[in-house]
């Protein structure tokens, strides 16, 4: 087992190095760079820009910049943002909690509702509910999230005035209720797509379990449909869903770009977009590495989990 683990870790590290080299190169190949934002500034001269370039170390050859960055990363220094001078880890940290809150709540909503719709759809196959759920899921998956967001804002904020049009909370009011009030619309909008996905997966998984022999046996034993469902079907159908939830872990942490923009939510998705717009290389690289580590870690955990459950994997 330890050999398998070491092997996987080794592979993961190689992968991280490759990701970082590709990311760094592509990022630096984009014309413009972090100083382009001053291009239209009255009074800004090329001499000033050249000076800034030198101070930021951007005039060195690319390989030298990469090695410098990688060496500092190995020492735990993720660098400083070009935009506000704060450490990259603190910049990421400041946005992580906002994303966790939004993605966490929308995931809970998505799992709860999606699971229920999926099971009910499977147990009432070809019923009006099942058809409605199928069409609903198709619509939710086809329409872009920002459209749902804008419609939500228009209806619930501008027309009815029930919910805030955006922001994480009202400035000056840090109460839990205020946070929850602001959380409703974006998390429901974000959950829509996930509900659709969860319900489809859950429906398939439930149908799969229902056709199994042990369910037929249970039915033959005269157990009630409700009991069969609760005791034998749901638990088994949820097992593959756990893998699905695991796969969604990186997306939970890296944010929902569109939703965060529409609802002015100060999370990771918007940070990524902003940092790219300003060519804030250290932050973009930090986010890239953060996501890469999450993906690799997620896969590694899944692999290990499977290996523990199924010894044949280890052998191969």
């Amino acid at each position: 087992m330890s050999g398998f683990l070491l092997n996987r870790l080794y592979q993961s590290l190689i992968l991280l190095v490759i990701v970082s080299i590709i990311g760094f190169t592509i990022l630096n190949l984009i014309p413009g760079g972090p100083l382009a934002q001053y291009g239209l500034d009255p009074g800004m001269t090329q001499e000033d820009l050249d000076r800034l370039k030198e101070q930021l170390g951007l005039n060195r050859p690319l390989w030298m910049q990469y090695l410098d960055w990688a060496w500092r990363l190995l020492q735990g220094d993720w660098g400083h943002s070009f935009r506000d001078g704060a450490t990259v880890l603190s910049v990421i940290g400041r946005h992580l909690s906002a994303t966790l809150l939004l993605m966490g709540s929308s995931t809970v909503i998505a799992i709860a509702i999606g699971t229920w719709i999926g099971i009910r759809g499977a147990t009432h196959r070809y019923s009006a509910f099942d058809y409605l759920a199928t069409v609903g899921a198709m619509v939710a998956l086809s329409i872009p999230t920002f459209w749902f967001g804008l419609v939500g804002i228009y209806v619930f904020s501008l027309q009815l005035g029930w919910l805030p049009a955006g922001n994480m909370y009202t400035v000056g009011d840090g109460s839990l209720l205020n946070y929850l009030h602001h959380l409703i619309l974006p998390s429901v909008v974000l959950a829509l797509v996930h509900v659709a996905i969860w319900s489809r997966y859950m429906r398939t998984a439930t149908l799969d379990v229902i056709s199994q022999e042990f369910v037929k046996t249970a039915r033959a034993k005269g157990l009630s449909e409700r009991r069969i469902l609760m005791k034998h079907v749901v638990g088994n159908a949820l097992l593959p869903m756990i893998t699905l939830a695991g796969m969604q872990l990186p997306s939970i942490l890296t944010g929902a770009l569109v939703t965060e923009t529409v609802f002015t939510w100060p999370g990771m998705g918007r940070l990524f977009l902003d940092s790219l717009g300003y060519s804030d290389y250290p932050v973009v690289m930090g986010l890239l590495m953060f996501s890469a580590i999450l993906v690799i870690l997620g896969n590694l955990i899944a692999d290990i989990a499977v290996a523990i459950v199924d010894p044949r994997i280890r052998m191969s």
Partner: protein
Amino acid sequence: MTKVETTKQTYSRRETLRLMAAGGLAGLVAPNLLGSPAFGQTAPAKPTGRVVVGLSQEPTVFNPLMAHTEVDDAVHFSVFDALFRMDPQGVLQPNLAAEVPSQKNGGISQDGLLWHIRLRDDVRWHDGAPFTAEDVKFTLELITNPKFRAWRTSGHSLVRDIKVISPTEITWRMESVFAPYLSFLAETFMVPKHLLEKEADPNAAGFNQAPIGTGAFKWAQRIAGDHIELVANAEYFGEGPYLERLVFKYIPDMTVLYTQFKSGDIDLVDQAYITADHYAEASKLSDRVVTLEPGASVESIYLNLEKPQFKDPAVRQALYAAMDRKAIIDAIYYGVGNLTETFMPQQSYYYNPNLPAQEYNLDRARQILDEAGWVPGSDGVRAKDGVRLSFSNATTAGNNLREQVQQFLQQTFAEIGVEMTISNLPGAVMWGDFWLKSQFDSAISGVTYVIAADPDVTNRLHTRAIVAKGGKGSNTGQYSNPEVDALLEKGARTFDPEERRAIYFRVQEIVRQDLPFLPLFAYTNVFGRKEGLEGFKANANTRVASWHAAGWHWKS
């Protein structure tokens, strides 16, 4: 002249000129010009209430001397003070200085080289330490410290032999005469020596994340990616503040920004303002005050004059004649924008209103090209001496209004035998080397030429400012005219506003004739704020609407 000048003013244009000439006299005669006395009557005795200002970019640089963009100015103007400030009429007013130095009041020597500044003696930093001439010296020296990531250094690099005479007096010598330096100083905020001198690396100082200034508002907190909160500085030496809290809220999407203005989450829309397409709807909103205010930038087609197509003045004249600018403003920009023939802001004292007006006339455009020998080829595109009258046009991708202008012009130019292709780029790419090092054929951009209200445009129009030819500046169109060069050099050495006016009028005449760029319109910004927010003043000489939040208050 402009809307600004037709609003409530306490002095005429002639008086303005006299004040400008008298420099510091303005401070003595009219100390209340920055904050309108009319508002003062209803302002609360104690700071109360809160204003949320919406911004479409996030302020991230709080040390005002470090490289930053205009959105950061929103915070700088409230937390810090400069020696002088530029008021809405383009007149310098004393801020931390007791008076604006001039040759008449002896603050600037007759040869323009020796400067003597007298400071107020009642100013304190937010931590209670007194503000003195040592802080001014430290600030000016920090800007030119080669290790410091300073913003622009033009003007400051000419300062030599700074001497602190007393806590309220400071002198320095200029390496060469540079009249625009007064305006540069109006955008140079003072930083505290006692806090920054201890820092080994001023680029990484804690001060940069939680600044301490002398301004009307004190730093409270920043929620990165969301908002910045300032609180009233009850000890402020100037007018106000009347608000207890000032919040700068970051909303990256323009539509969302407008929606939040509409829903009432934002009290005032700053930098980026309300987009032209929302103007008609916004002006009908109840409980909102939406006004059109002139801006300092001019939207133009920038031509790279080193491209063979544009070397012939006839081509530039023909293209200009083929531009239906009125239709562009009315049909594409929802009527928001003013026709202009020059780069100078129309509200400026130096704006030349006597320039020949462009006339949209396709026949005339064709005639100019015919006479200049540009003959249509088999594909309908004109050519001369092997050069096809064909070029690409670039602007920031995703700016739908500019993209519509491009399509409109592409069609009209085709009618006179000119081929224009469209090739747009993301902003972060467009304004890099592509723009600065003149790699474009032609580009659409809104450019501000002046700094504060000074008419000096050396940086944009002098031959020495062509970066692609090894110069220092941002003359990206590569315009070069010896007469303009000479005039600009003279203008930078002249302090007298009347004399300068004549110089820059002539510069505008020549530029209008040469057409190094083709003006589309002068920017008009759509300002929006909640009804009841009083003390607000637009100021085209600053880059942000919240330049004077100290004077704001809610109607009681």
